[in-house]
């Protein structure tokens, strides 16, 4: 698989489809780091393991490079979804982006609790089936129990927070400047642990319809807060009610921004709590 990725990267560079390929490089002393390969000769040092989210980096590169600079990125499923979301949110120009999609292995999918471990534009590797996050024990346990029990469980977990902002910084889609989490109005600054409700729920809600379930927040967290579990129920709700999955369709905007009657596509039922609307719509 690695050879095939290198082959594609060389072709992309040789045919001038892109000016650079962003991928991982095994450099001096076998240190693996992200690198922009700009000539086909360099590509020999390209590696694809371990998983490293490059979406945010691609955005930074594209923003700071000259106009018309085209970048190819070696992406996994989550990376591709993140890039799609960034394009939708006008952070990246679509024309300047080329993707080289690689599939994850079954073990990796299991480790990430990923339900779509392959990109839509798959260039090498075979797509393996995803894992249903709600069938995983640890997730089940977090979302189990009635109100107060669950509340206490989450309160205890979130109290560990040291407010390093790692979850925000590592998230490929957290791009707002200025950030609400740094604003005294929303989250009290200078307090550790972070205000449990404000900090975590505001962060989680801001990503409700954008979260691509890449797990970067969780990986970055130094105190092992299972942040993905916060996101899962909202992703599930969007999928069930609107049939919307963040990052899959570049043309479709988030359903929570739009009106209820027009947004559901043909054949899709309106959520049952607005059924009365149907009459308004027909008249």
């Amino acid at each position: 698989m690695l050879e095939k990725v290198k082959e594609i990267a060389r072709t992309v560079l040789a045919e001038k489809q892109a000016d650079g390929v962003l991928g991982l490089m095994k450099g001096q002393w076998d240190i693996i780091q992200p690198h922009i390969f700009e000539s086909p000769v360099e590509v020999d040092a390209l590696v694809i393991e371990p998983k490293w989210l490059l979406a945010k980096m691609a955005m930074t590169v594209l923003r700071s490079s000259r106009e018309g600079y085209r970048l190819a990125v070696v992406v996994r499923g989550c990376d591709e979804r993140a890039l799609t979301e960034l394009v939708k949110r006008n952070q990246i120009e679509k024309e300047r982006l080329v993707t080289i999609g690689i599939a994850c292995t079954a073990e990796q999918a299991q480790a990430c609790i990923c339900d779509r471990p392959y990109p839509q534009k798959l260039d090498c590797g075979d797509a393996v089936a995803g894992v249903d996050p709600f069938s995983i024990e640890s997730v089940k346990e977090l979302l189990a129990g009635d109100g107060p029990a669950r509340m206490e469980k989450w309160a205890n977990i979130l109290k560990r927070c040291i407010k390093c902002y790692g979850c925000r910084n590592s998230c490929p889609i957290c791009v707002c400047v200025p950030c609400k989490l740094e604003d005294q109005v929303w989250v009290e600054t200078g307090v550790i642990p972070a205000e449990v409700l404000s900090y975590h729920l505001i962060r989680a809600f801001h990503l409700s319809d954008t979260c691509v379930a890449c797990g970067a927040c969780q990986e970055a967290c130094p105190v092992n807060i299972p942040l993905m579990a916060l996101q899962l129920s909202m992703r599930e709700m969007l999928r069930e009610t609107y049939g919307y999955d963040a990052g899959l369709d570049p043309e479709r905007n988030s359903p929570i921004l739009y009106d209820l009657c027009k947004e559901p596509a043909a054949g899709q039922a309106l959520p049952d709590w607005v059924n009365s609307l149907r009459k308004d719509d027909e008249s």
Partner: protein
Amino acid sequence: MKILIFACKWCGLIGADGAGKKRIQLPPEFRVIAVECAALVEPDAVIRAFASGMTGVAVLGCHLGGCRFNDANHAAIKRLELLKTLLDATGIGGKRLLISFGTAHEGYQYAEVVKTFFEELKTMPSTVAWTASL
């Protein structure tokens, strides 16, 4: 018990006003914040209200299709419904957030909504786990 009510200027607030004019007896522990439209109530504001110790938050707006700002309350209801999912997942309980559109235009309707919400909140478990850490 503390309740925060975000009332849209065109419906909820008129109801609140009417209830006051009619001198309907209401439980005293609620505060009303007037907003131009229910869509201006960011979910973040609701979260912030819970964080500052509110037992319940209510968002009262115009009925769907009757918003002064075209489809603004459609977006609002979608957002807040999604927020309920998050509140449920963390155990606060989506029921602590009342989304009521087009039900509080008259004084007596408003009183009814507020009273029912109070009764419902009374039956819910306390928020000690969250507030202790604040």
